[in-house]
C-alpha cells in the first residue's frame, strides 16, 4: 500500500521520556482484533492515556495540551517486543509522521519504514538536548529533512545527521513500497523457486 510522501517535516514535538517503550504499551493486544487498518490511533498508548474506567490520565503526555505535533520523541530502545505493525499504524493514525529515539528495536523500525513513519535515530546527547528543549519550550519547532538526512532543533540551531538506507529513503521520498519493486523481478523469483529443494 502506498503512503504519503515524506520530504521535509517541520513540527512541534511530543516528549515521551521513557526507555524500552514496548509495542504492548504502544497498542495493547486487546485492540488488535480488527480486520482492517482503521481507528488504531484512538488506542495508541491506551493504558497510559486512560484509567481502567476510561477516564483520562491527566499526567500522561498525550493528554497534556502543552505538547502537540507530528513528531514523537521517545527514550532509548523504542518499539521493542511484539512484531505487531499495529503499533506503527497507531502512531501514524494518531497523526505522528516521525519518531525520534536514540535506539530503535529492529522490527518496529522496519514496520515504520514500510508504512511511512520515519524513524530517526539520534545520539543520546542530541536526544537529551531535544527533551530539554521541548520541556522548556513546548512550542519549539523541530525540522526533519529527509533528503539531507538531518534533524534540527531550530530554536537553538542544533542539528544532527541521521542514517537511513538509500533504498528505503527513496521509497519514503516517493511513497513507494517494496511490493512494487518485487513484482518487477517476478521472473527472477520464479527461477529461484524452481531450484529450491525445500
Amino acid at each position: 500500500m502506498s503512503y504519503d510522501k515524506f520530504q521535509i517535516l517541520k513540527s512541534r514535538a511530543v516528549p515521551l521520556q521513557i526507555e524500552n517503550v514496548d509495542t504492548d504499551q504502544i497498542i495493547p493486544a486487546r485492540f488488535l482484533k480488527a480486520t482492517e487498518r482503521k481507528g488504531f490511533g484512538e488506542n495508541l498508548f491506551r493504558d497510559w492515556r486512560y484509567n481502567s474506567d476510561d477516564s483520562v490520565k491527566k499526567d500522561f503526555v498525550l493528554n497534556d495540551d502543552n505538547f502537540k505535533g507530528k513528531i514523537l520523541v521517545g527514550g532509548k530502545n523504542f518499539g521493542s517486543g511484539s512484531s505487531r505493525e499495529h503499533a506503527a499504524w497507531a502512531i501514524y493514525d494518531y497523526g505522528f509522521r516521525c519518531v525520534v529515539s536514540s535506539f530503535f528495536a529492529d522490527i518496529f523500525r522496519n514496520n515504520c519504514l514500510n508504512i511511512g513513519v520515519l524513524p530517526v535515530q539520534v545520539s543520546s546527547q542530541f536526544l537529551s538536548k531535544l527533551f530539554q528543549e521541548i520541556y522548556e519550550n513546548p512550542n519549539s519547532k523541530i525540522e526533519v529533512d529527509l533528503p539531507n538526512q538531518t534533524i534540527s532543533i531550530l530554536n537553538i540551531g542544533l542539528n544532527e545527521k541521521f542514517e537511513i538506507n538509500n533504498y528505503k529513503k527513496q521509497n519514503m521520498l516517493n511513497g513507494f513500497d517494496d511490493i512494487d519493486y518485487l513484482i518487477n523481478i517476478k521472473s527472477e523469483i520464479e527461477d529461484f523457486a524452481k531450484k529450491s529443494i525445500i
Partner: protein
Amino acid sequence: MKKTLFDKVWDSHVIHKITNGPDVLFIDRHMVHEVTSPVAFLGLKKRKIKVLYPERTFATADHNTPTLNQHLPVKDKLSANQLKALENNSREHGISFWGLGHEKNGIVHVVGPEYGITLPGATIVCGDSHTSTHGAFGAIAFGIGTSEVEMVLSTQCIMQQKPKSMRINVSGELEKGVTPKDVALYIISKLSTSGATGYFVEYAGNVFSQMSMEGRMTVCNLSIEMGARGGMIAPDQKTFDYVKGREFAPSGGNWELAMEFWNNLPSDKGAIFDKEFHFEGKDIEPMITYGTNPGMGISILKDIPKYNSDKGQKETYKKSLDYMSYKEGETMLGKQIDFVFLGSCTNGRIEDFRAFSEIVKGRKKAKNVTAWLVPGSHKVEKAIKDEGILKILNDAGFELREPGCSACLAMNDDKVPPGKYAVSTSNRNFEGRQGPGSRTLLASPIVAAAAAITGKVTDPRTLF
C-alpha cells in the same frame, strides 16, 4: 572466506542484491495467524493479486482463540470475525488452514516443528516476533510486520538488510533444576533487552548441544527478548532425527539432497562473528523476573537489585518496580502469587508439561492460586493424555485447557486481573501483557509448578 551458519543460510537465499539497499531474500516457509494477516490479505485484494506460492504458507488460529469450549462458536464478536477472515482468506488462496478444532491446530511456533514445516537451512517468517523459535533447527526465522506478510504472500520474498552476527557460547553443564528457560533468561539479564538489537545470534557450546530440540526452541524463542532478529543453533543428528518423517519435511531423494546441504551448515572453524559472548553453564540458577521487561531477571535466590545509574534510566527502573509494587533489595523468594500460567510457544510443549507434572505429582495446588495449563497444540494435548500426565495434574487439583496462546498475550478471556501476580512460563512481562494491570513473573515450568503448589515464589529444587 570462512562462513557462519547464518551466512550460509542467508547467502543461499539471496535472489537479488540492491546496491546501498536491502537483499531480496527468498522465503521457504511462511506461517500466518489471524491477528497480523487480515490487512495483508486486504492488500492483495486491493492490488488484485493472488498468493504466489500457496503451498509455502500455512495458517493456524491461535492468538485470539478461547481455551475452553472450542467446539462452541467463539463468543467475542471481533475475535470470531478475525478467525473467520483467516479461514476465508486461506480458502480463497488455497493455503493449508488449521482452524479451531482441527487436529493440527495449535500455536504457530509449536505446530511448525511438529509437522516438519520447520526445517534446517530454511528461511521461515511469520507475523509474530517469536518466529525466532524455529531457529532451533538451524533455520533463519524471524518475525515480520503486516506489510511484510503481504510482501511474502504476493512475492514469496522479503527485503532485508543483512543483520550483524553474534555468537553466544555457554560451555560446561547445567545443574539439576536449571532449564533452557533459565539459560535464556540468564543471557537476557546479562545482555539487556536491547543487547542484541541489529544482530542475528548463534547459540553454541556444550549446553546447547546437550539440550533437547524442545529446549533449543525455548532458547531461540526468547532471542527476540534481547532485541535480536533471531537466534539459531547448528543442526546436528538430534535435529535430523526430529525432522525425519514429519509430514512436510522432504522425503526420498529430496531428503538426501537436503541432508547434503544441512550437513554443511555449521559455522566454519575460525568464522568471525561481529560480537561474541561466553558464559558458563554452572553459573546459571533457576531464574525469575521482578520487573516489566524480560531483561529484569535474577537468580531466584537473589534480591531485587538496587539501581545506580543516570537519572533517565533510574526513572524507568523505578516506574517498573512501582508497577510491580516491589522495592529494591527485597527478596523474591516467598513473594505471594495469585496465578500460574503454563503454556505459550516458549514453554507449551510436552517436555514442559512433563517437567511441571514431576513437581506437582503427589502434591496439591495451593488454594489461593488460579492455574491455567494450556498446551501449545492438540498434539501436545494428546501426548499429555496418552502419557498419563493429565491424571497426575488432575490428582493435584489442576485442569487442562485447550490449545492456544492464551494468557501469553491475553487477547482472549484468559486475563490476569489488575494488580494480581502471575508466575508465567511465557515470554513477556511487559505492563499489562497478561491483562490490563497484570503483574508477570517470568520463569521456567518447574518454578511455575513450585509456585502453583506453594502459592508463592519458591525454589523448585527444594521440592525434588
